[in-house]
């Protein structure tokens, strides 16, 4: 674990960006750049972080930053990494450059999964960070493959017949780890030293690494903006968001939750789950609690903690 003293005081992701108050993506970006170890290039998929941090002619990024499109952050990172290798071969470049790709859950779970899978299989040396706010928040809160069961979005509304999204969330880290990459992990911005340590680890490994970090969204999850980090902590303490890592195929639980709070403590502060707290749909709360319990069992079993 890193300590505060070890972190750079330099702000490489500067203030003045136009992310919402309480947005997890800005916190994630800032903390990520605190973990850098040398020359670094950021690649950003289309999404909230991209549109809000680089409105021309302004930029929040004090490191080279590239945005190409929505679904291809991992492919662009592949190209940059390959170019540095080629330049080094002909003695046109002599420093190691770290490459970090940032993408939201839409750009990772859905439209970007192919480019990510390809880059992981090819083994490019880069760190991929998915900041997961659990829906297409940039386009106005549409459901994604990362949206949890029961959540209301503009394409999975809380209807009178169908109460929010019927499907469950994909297991992103399971998918990434199945590529046999050296390091994959989940994280929550409420546990900053765990997150920053993982970013550094992800940069250190040779080859691809993936971090899946929870990213609260006051607008889309409909919670108070001053409660973002509190919500990010509740997600972990209710076992909704297990914090673990997979290094060389070995699962390890990083944050133990021996006395979990009920998942309703996490759901209640969020407007996207409000419709579940009605007599008609409250049985869905049990469905979500059951999913949390089963998922926790599965992850802790993989971690050898069961």
């Amino acid at each position, binding site marked *: 674990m890193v300590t505060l003293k070890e972190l750079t005081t330099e702000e490489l992701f500067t203030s003045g960006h136009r992310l919402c108050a309480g947005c997890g993506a800005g916190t994630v970006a800032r903390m990520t750049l605190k973990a850098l170890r040398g*020359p*670094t*290039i950021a*690649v950003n998929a289309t999404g909230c972080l*991209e*549109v809000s941090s*680089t*409105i*021309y*002619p302004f*930029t929040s*990024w*004090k*490191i*080279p*930053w*590239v*945005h*190409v*499109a929505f*679904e*291809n952050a*991992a*492919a*662009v*990172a*592949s*190209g*940059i990494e*390959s*170019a*540095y*290798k*080629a*330049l080094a*071969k*002909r003695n*046109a470049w002599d*420093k190691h*450059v770290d490459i970090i790709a940032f993408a939201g859950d839409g750009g990772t779970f859905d439209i970007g999964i*192919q*480019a990510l*899978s*390809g*880059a992981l*299989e*090819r083994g490019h040396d880069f760190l991929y960070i998915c900041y997961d706010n659990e829906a297409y928040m940039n386009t106005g809160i549409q459901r994604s493959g990362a949206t949890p069961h029961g959540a209301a979005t503009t394409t999975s509304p809380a209807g009178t017949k169908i109460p929010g999204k019927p499907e469950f969330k994909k297991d992103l880290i399971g998918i990434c780890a199945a590529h046999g990459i050296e390091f994959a992990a989940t994280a929550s911005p409420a546990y900053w030293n765990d997150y920053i340590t993982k970013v550094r680890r992800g940069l250190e490994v040779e080859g691809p690494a993936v971090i899946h970090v929870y990213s609260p969204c006051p607008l889309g999850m409909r919670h108070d903006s001053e409660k973002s980090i509190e919500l990010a902590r509740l997600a972990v303490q209710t076992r909704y968001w297990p914090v673990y890592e997979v290094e060389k195929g070995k699962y390890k639980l990083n944050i133990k939750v021996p006395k979990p709070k009920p998942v309703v403590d996490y759901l209640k502060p969020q407007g996207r789950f409000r419709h579940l707290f009605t007599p008609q749909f409250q049985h869905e709360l049990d469905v979500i609690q059951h999913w949390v319990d089963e998922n926790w069992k599965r992850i802790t079993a993989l971690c050898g903690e069961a």
Partner: protein
Amino acid sequence: MSRVMGLTGDEAIAYAVKQSNVDVVAAYPITPQTIIVEAFSEYVHNGEVNTEFVCVESEHSAMSACIGSSLTGARVFTASSSQGLALMHEMLYIASGLRCPIVMGVANRALSAPINIHGDHSDMMGSRDCGWIQIYGENAQEAYDWTLQAFRIAEDSNVLLPVTVNIDGFILSHSLEGVEVLEDGDAARFLSTRKPVLTIDPSKPITVGALCLTDYYFEMKCQQAEALKETPKAIDQVSREYESLTGRRYSFIETYGLEDAQAAILCLGSTAGTAKAVAKNLRSRGKKVGVIKPWLYRPFPAKEIVKAAENLEALAVLDRACSFGALYGALGNDVVSALYQEGKKLNVFNVVYGLGGRDIAPFDIEAIFKEALEVAETGLVKEPLKFVGVRE
């Protein structure tokens, strides 16, 4: 010094890429382009090149990786065809919008549906407005020559735009021809290594691909349009230098028999070879016919074409792609617009031919010449747009 090798159109492009000291090739297989990446893979696996070869999982990622590499300052190549080009359509606009020098070999092929693997120009014409410099070669020699020149053109500090070198699928991509190639040393002197203007260098951080809204987007697009319009200067300069090295003179268009022609055919790629052969035959029988072959399709060499056509009385423009619902095919539209803009009254008719690889035979071309001569005599265009070679 030069020597002759037996190469298919695809192999000729791969060989030119080998001699171009390319840093990164990111590509995905698709017929009829596949030979390019296969041949290049052999160079990589036999240690004949130092290139980083990225075997991506789709054409979309191929172009995405090329953009990343180009922004880093590398010399970059890819190749595609048909559905693959259509899949990377989104990225084509970003490559030119971010002013990325990239060279792409395109073995032109029909677009689905129905699926068809053979040659026509539907793929590139579907992306003609993507902001790339677009070149069409007539044979394997031209494919080789233009590929070498394309790197110089794309990377010229006054250009900084991507370039496609198009060859007809199968007709050129898979046909073996004698190709005069440069010695490696001469090619290396002609190309040297890329001297990038602005890169994503960590010691001088820049932001690339920012969000530009109503206040800046329009100006940037106008600058891009201006940049593409200005590229003929660099193309001309590179071609002159290439001529001094090889003796082969390239320009924006090639003409045949126009000194006294009444009627002519204007077409792209390999069909121009057939058209020249038929014109030669007809001319020996006293028919005053000629051929205009644009090498450069974008930016469109309007002035050169209008000048070439100044003494013509009729012109048949041949399109190997269908522009559904339009008055003419893409090339037809461009030629008619060019003539109108220059105030030149010329009777033009447009022929759509060869879709899905349907052969265009000398007798088809001869019939088109005869119709053009008839139009020249009568001054009447009976059918402004017709399909030739299709069964009734």
